[in-house]
């Protein structure tokens, strides 16, 4: 099949059929090169902080500190994976830390009755279940996910209070050590099991989004729901699956946090969902959905974790930490925004 212009007798098929001048084509190519360059604006911000910390402290680039940094990033990192996937699909999940708390509590309770492996499985199952419930409600009731998951998160926190009767719950003494296995260092240079779990989940989410047909559907649903539907994509199923994945990530984060403290309680990780969303968005994932990547969420997590780490290493008074953290997030996003401004 050939499609050539048939507009005039003297018009050759390859010379004039597209009235796109060389200037225009050149301009578009320049636009694309620019797109690729500015995609990495946020990485430059993070790299600048890394360089600054390496130069000003002798301790930043030590194995001990980097292992520690990764361990600190694990919980927010798992939640940021959840937030990134959900935001790319064009939704928000404000219930991730409430799901985290319920899952962690379930892990402790089931561990008490049936052992650690059963506890872990139960926690993940509860995370997936609550996530799927979020998705089903968003899809069927058609309330905006921001509001729906806000309301559901209050319910889940309430559920956590009911499960614990408002107290802190602990696994039994004889199972405590096994329960805390996730917080142990591993043979891989002392990197904790939590860090490895975080990296593994991030890798799975990364592959899922960038290499699978499911990932393509997630981007399509987030970028243009109507176009996705008309392309034969079952938008509802994709949304439910995305929320279920978010729930599983939250449950894993709950396991890490419970292992670290050797306990669980209803108020765990309160407010951290906003940090996770900030991490996802700081990295350059569009809040409008349809654009973004896991690596962007990871860069955001790195930025946020680096700030805390930097305060520690530099010996700065931590009462200023939040102000600096907020300012740096704003600065990084503004820089990114300036680089992207020409696109519109």
């Amino acid at each position, binding site marked *: *099949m*050939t*499609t*050539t*212009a*048939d*507009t*005039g007798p003297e018009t050759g098929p390859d010379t*004039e*059929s*597209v*009235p*796109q*001048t060389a*200037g*225009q*084509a050149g*301009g*578009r*190519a*320049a*636009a*694309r090169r*620019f*797109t690729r360059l500015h995609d990495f604006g946020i990485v430059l911000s993070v790299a600048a902080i890394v360089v600054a910390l390496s130069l000003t402290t002798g301790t930043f680039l030590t194995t001990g500190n980097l292992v520690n940094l990764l361990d600190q990033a694990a919980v927010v990192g798992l939640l940021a994976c959840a937030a990134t996937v959900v935001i790319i699909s064009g939704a928000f999940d404000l219930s991730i830390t409430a799901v985290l708390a319920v899952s962690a509590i379930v892990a402790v309770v089931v561990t008490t009755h049936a052992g650690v492996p059963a506890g872990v499985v139960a926690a993940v199952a509860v995370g997936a279940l609550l996530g799927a419930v979020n998705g089903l409600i968003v899809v069927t009731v058609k309330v905006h996910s921001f509001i729906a998951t806000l309301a559901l998160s209050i319910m889940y926190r309430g559920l956590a209070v009911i499960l614990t009767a408002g107290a802190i719950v602990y696994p039994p003494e004889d199972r405590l050590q096994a329960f805390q296995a996730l917080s142990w260092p591993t043979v891989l240079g002392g990197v904790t099991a939590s860090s490895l779990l975080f990296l593994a989940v991030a890798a799975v989410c990364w592959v899922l989004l960038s*290499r*699978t*047909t*499911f990932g*393509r*559907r997630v*981007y*399509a649903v987030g*970028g*243009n729901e*109507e*176009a*996705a*539907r*008309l*392309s*034969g*994509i*079952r938008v509802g199923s994709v949304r439910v699956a995305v929320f279920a994945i978010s729930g599983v990530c939250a449950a894993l984060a709950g396991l890490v946090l419970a292992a670290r403290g050797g306990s669980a309680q209803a108020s765990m990780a309160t407010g951290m969902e906003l940090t996770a969303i900030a991490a996802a968005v700081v990295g350059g994932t*569009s809040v409008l959905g*349809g*654009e973004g990547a896991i690596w962007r969420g990871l860069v955001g997590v790195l930025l946020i974790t680096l700030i805390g780490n930097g305060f520690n290493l530099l010996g700065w008074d931590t009462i200023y930490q939040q102000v600096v953290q907020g300012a740096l997030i704003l600065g990084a996003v503004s820089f990114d925004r300036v680089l992207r401004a*020409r*696109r*519109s």
Partner: protein
Amino acid sequence: MSQPVRIDLEGFGKAYGGVPVLRDVSFTLHGGRVHGLLGENGAGKSTLLKAVCGAVAPDTGRILLDGRPIPVGSPRDALRHGFALISQELALVPAMTVLDNVYLGRWRHRFGWRSRRGDAAAFDRLVERTGFDIDPSALVGELPLAARQQVEILRALASGASVIGMDEPTALLTKTETDRLLAVVRDLAAAGAAVVLISHFLEEVLSICDDVTVLRDGRHVMTGPASEQTPGSLVRHMVGRPLDLLYPEPVPVPATAPVLLRARDLRRGDAVRGVSLDVRAGEIVGVAGLVGSGRSETLRALFGADPRDGGTVEVEGEEVPPGSPSRAMRAGLAMVPESRKDQGLLLGRSVRENVALAGLGGRQLAGFVRSRAEGEAAGAMLRDLDVRGSDLGGPVWTLSGGNQQKVLFGKWLMDRPRVLLVDEPTRGVDVAAKSQIHRLLVDLAADGMGVLVVSSEVEEVLGLSHRVLVMRHGRMVAEFARGEATRERVLALAFADDAPPDDGPAPGGPPAPHPQDTTIPDTPTPDTVTPDTAAPGIATSAEERP
């Protein structure tokens, strides 16, 4: 505010993401005159108007009011110097009343409290001047489109505007509404304002404008008195060569060609009321009708994009279940939707991802995208469609409108549907791409595909189709064989007299556009149909369905 006599626009330039859309455009507007701004889609008309009126900041360009330069590029400065823009995307606050919108941001106040009474009095004087019949306490969001446009005009007047830009103000108005609006435009000019009018209706431009400017590819082509132009000469300036939009001749359908798509008594709300149609292998069937006649809704119901209230759809004898695009696709249907931006493409994603989207399931291995197969298939498709100046990995938004439209076609042709439903095949594409898309449709039919085309451009329907169906108020009212259908017959039937009253839109549907509803006329002389007189005579000569 004193009204300027002469407004010089000098050297306007603007690029989006490195792509120039305006290049060094200069011309002069005059107070008391209506100035038409013409050009094909993408010629830069809207961008220029927005830049002049402060809605976008141009990269270069200055404005001289009677020889004095004024700041350019901010809405506030523009407003202060008497510039107002009535744009395609109406900039009103839907949840506020008409009165609040007209004086938006400039409400009269006493001691910091809003003085609604002062605004109301001023509003009454404005309405008296324009003759608009608008309730100041109505919510803007509940008004029909034409009334919202009037609110915009009132707002421009209320701001004391002396230079008023109007971007396609009549595109969606009925004939009566259009006449009333154009009368107001004349009054504005008579009162000394400089009005810049963008319109695709050439007769309208020639009848109302004193001067015209034509843009092409972002460049200034000509400015001169409208009285020296004809529709034909304007089109030549817009296109850059004599217009001979030749439609490729469709290959005749063999008498033995089987029926691929069969719809019987299709129903969907008020929009589709019992539509039956057949499309045979190798056949292009065109559907003409006004906006709101149920054309697009028929396609959407066929494809399952909307649920249907009744009727059956079969592809090659197999029943297509209702309300599921994915099942319709499995049955061999594909639909190129009306709006590539809202319904078709993921603008931020790559060309490759877009082309592959509809057929994802076919190129996977255990859920993973078969990357090489996909790349090869997408590359081959884009070569076939002659999409230039793009690589597969680049985002779709960097492409021109014509190439975006071709990507949209590519997406639906990847898996070779049996029947292709096309809504507005060439909306917003340049002439060359338009011609290529026409060629493509004819080639697809020649290969044995069934094609059902809906278009607002009557010429396109007539030029492409083996058979032409005319829709009105949700029903097929006539069918013509190729050659029998003429523009006059089709328009007369589309506008026939059981239409709802001209004033105000029909309930549950957008208002019908007036008869010059074509962007480019096929002949230099306007051949406008007056439905009231032409319809009865012609309707009897056409094959009316019960």
